[in-house]
């Protein structure tokens, strides 16, 4: 910014786009300068992804003009846009599960001689790129399907970086990355900037955007609300512009007296990801679960819920001294547990089915007699939850795949509330969800605790854990590394606990004691 003003690399003006039933963009202007990060912010459904997809040639605008480096730019399709150096790393993973990491990265241009792939060269070049994005420990010949979501996202980003480009659009690149992976990504972005690449950056994480963006454009309901240099917008400005009203950022929780234990877990072990985990949750309490990705947080919850088999360990419910038998999810649900999975589309929702069928699924017995479903009762019930959680949908009969991420997540929550559980496990409940919906979900969790439910919340977002939870347990390499209660934690303490087992492992055999 100290230099002469960077030149305009890309310009779009008066972009309109409508889909059946919604006007996704109306009269939106957008420009991008060389070597700058231009962030797009807005709630889900605000039009960020649509705008980016139009720029990347995936969608066609209904009207409006675009120009690239001064020339008129009308991409016929994605390939056409890519040949002009405009690339997009999408929110939904775009990898081929059965191919290796290296094959995925170079899928468009596999190094080959006489049609036979040169695997040595392929894996070598892939390794170079992977090192850059921090996939240091990963073998390029690993099939992608064996990786976790976060690692897959890094591969996707590496693939995006592998190709020469003038404009790189990143749609929610950090949604499932750990802090250290995010740092590596930012370092890469900085390098691309110096090379003169223009970067379009979409994210819900405002702090992150404030850090790396040069300029910020805010969209709401398909309209351009503001485009300003990043250093002229505070975080609360951004939130206000995005949702069009003010939000209190202060404590969400009214302190509640926590009651008797709702769940005690002793020595839970499963495979290599869950090692001898012991903890308890009380009624009225929100227990946070922190840890790096791959630290066994999700696996612990899955084992607890019976989704994965436990090798050993005991689970006690309520005040009972007799361990509960939980060997499959239906056992857990019968014991009034609920589990909102980290991956709502793959594991939580019946995407092509109506909202009402998704909500009623957990307890069809409540709205049926002799196996016969009372459809009108089901609709009333669905409407009740749609109103209570303010789920934005056209009717209870709308299919969930047409809803935005935040509203989809609310449908999953409604489904579990309907089963009337005592213990609720939420795994990354706010991933990929806009700020407005995020706060609504926080409020729901707080309310559940106030009603005396026991809530467990797994999250990669420390800030949200620290503002919502009564206690935070930290997992590291499959073990419970530490548990902190409110007022006794700090970001540093939690992070060092999260790394503790990895450090211990590298010192070989030195066993760190859990500081409970």
């Amino acid at each position, binding site marked *: 910014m100290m230099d002469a003003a960077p030149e305009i690399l890309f310009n779009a003006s008066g972009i309109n786009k409508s*889909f*059946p*039933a*919604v006007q*996704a963009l109306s009269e939106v202007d957008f420009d991008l300068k060389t070597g700058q990060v231009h962030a797009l912010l807005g709630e889900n*459904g605000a039009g960020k992804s649509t705008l980016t997809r139009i720029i990347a040639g995936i969608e066609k605008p209904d009207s409006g003009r675009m120009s690239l480096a001064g020339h008129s730019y009308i991409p016929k399709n994605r390939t056409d846009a890519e040949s002009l150096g405009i690339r997009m790393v999408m929110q939904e993973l775009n990898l081929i599960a059965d191919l290796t990491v290296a094959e995925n990265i170079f899928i468009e241009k596999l190094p080959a001689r006489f049609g036979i792939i040169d695997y040595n060269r392929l894996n070598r070049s892939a390794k170079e790129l992977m090192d850059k994005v921090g996939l240091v420990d990963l073998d390029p010949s690993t099939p992608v399907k064996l990786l976790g979501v976060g690692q897959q996202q890094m591969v996707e980003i590496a693939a995006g970086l592998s190709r020469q480009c003038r404009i790189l659009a990143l749609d929610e690149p950090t949604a499932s990355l750990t802090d250290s992976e995010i740092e590596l990504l930012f370092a890469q972005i900085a390098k691309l900037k110096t090379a003169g690449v223009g970067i379009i950056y979409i994210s819900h994480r405002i702090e992150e955007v404030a850090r790396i963006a040069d300029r910020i454009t805010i969209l709401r309901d398909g309209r351009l609300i503001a485009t300003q240099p990043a250093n002229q917008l505070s975080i609360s400005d951004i939130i206000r512009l995005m949702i069009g009203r003010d939000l209190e950022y202060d404590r969400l929780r009214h302190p509640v007296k926590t009651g008797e234990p709702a769940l005690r877990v002793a020595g839970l072990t499963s495979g290599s990801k869950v090692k001898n985990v012991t903890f308890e949750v009380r009624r009225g309490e929100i227990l946070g679960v922190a840890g790096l990705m791959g630290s066994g947080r999700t696996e612990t919850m899955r084992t607890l*819920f019976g*989704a994965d088999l436990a090798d050993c360990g005991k689970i006690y419910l309520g005040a009972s001294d007799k361990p509960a038998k939980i060997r*499959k*999810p*239906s056992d*857990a*649900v*019968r014991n009034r547990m609920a*589990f909102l*999975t980290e991956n709502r589309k*793959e*594991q*939580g*929702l*019946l*995407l*092509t*089915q109506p909202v009402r*069928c998704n909500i009623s*699924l*957990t307890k*069809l*017995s409540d709205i*049926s007699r002799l*196996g*016969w*479903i009372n*459809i009108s009762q089901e609709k009333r019930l669905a409407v009740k939850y749609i109103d209570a959680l303010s789920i934005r949908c056209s009717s209870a009969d709308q*299919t969930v*795949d*047409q*809803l*935005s991420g935040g509203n989809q997540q609310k449908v999953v929550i409604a*489904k579990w509330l309907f*089963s009337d559980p005592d213990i609720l496990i939420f795994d990354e409940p706010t991933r990929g969800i806009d700020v407005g919906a995020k706060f609504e979900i926080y409020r729901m969790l707080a309310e559940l605790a106030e009603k005396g439910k026991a809530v467990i919340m797994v999250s990669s977002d420390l800030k949200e854990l620290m503002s919502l939870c009564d206690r935070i347990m930290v997992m590291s390499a499959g073990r419970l590394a530490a548990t902190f209660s409110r007022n006794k934690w700090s970001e540093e303490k939690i992070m060092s606990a999260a790394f503790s087992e990895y450090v211990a492992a590298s010192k070989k055999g030195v066993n760190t004691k859990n500081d409970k």
Partner: protein
Amino acid sequence: MTNKKMSAIGTYLTDYFGMAVALALLLIIFGLSARNFFTLTTFRTIANQVPDITIVAVGMTFVLIIAGIDLSVGSVMALSGAVLGIALVEFNLPLPFAIAACIATGALCGLTNAFVIIRWKLPSFIVTLGMLEIARGAAYLVTQSRTIYIGGPIEVITDTSVLGLSLPFIIAVLIVAAGQAVLSRTVFGRYMIAIGTNEEAVRLSGIDPRPVKLSVFVLCSLLTSFAAVIQTARMSSANPNTGYGLELQAIAAVVIGGTSLMGGRGSVISSFFGVLIIAVLGTGLAQIGAQESTKRLITGCVIIAAVIVDQYRSRLRKPRV
């Protein structure tokens, strides 16, 4: 409220409207091109042909909805028909007992399919392909590869008629109605659709998908052996070669009806329309003197066209947001 209700009925009708129009078009075309198409004989022929395949198609619809497939129905029909024949002719069992033995045979085949599929988490395609061979082999074994003539004792089934409609046809229509009701109104039906849409989500919602899947495969074979009773009655005999290619005919009918091979979507009534379309096509073409070769060429094109049309329809129904 009335507006909403009207549009609900509207979408309900449009689901079947396309199928009804296609069927009506076929009837008109054949009515114009064949001299004696609109006669009682034609419709009696069709009504005689369709009951067994209709009943199989109901079971197949369920299997496809849970994202499975059952290739063994043709052989299971032959085997359970053979058991029926043997029970009547060699053991002289009374008809109800013979039918019970026939249906038990079907149930056993379905149970085997389901157990292997669920226990070892195998694709139903492979397992039922195995059963296709096994049941066929067993049918040859029990009949010693001969056709068993039954005659009188079994013909009561086809000879009974109510209001001019044959008993098998009435049974088939009732099974279609019941099947549609089960699918769209019961907990079991809802679970089927849910499993076909996303089995893992169903499991993680605390519903064990295994009993549902087991029931669906058993039900499919059970219905097939029920169809075998009707088929055997129509032929007055049990032939171990019967039902060759039945699985593909049934799948074709179900797919023409718009049921997705990917699971999660389907309708029993539409499958019935699919059966009728294929039957009318076959009968009509025969009447205008088309040869077997032409019949098959055209039937093939109809199957593919139906799926293409269905894809456009579902794309229209689902706007991108």
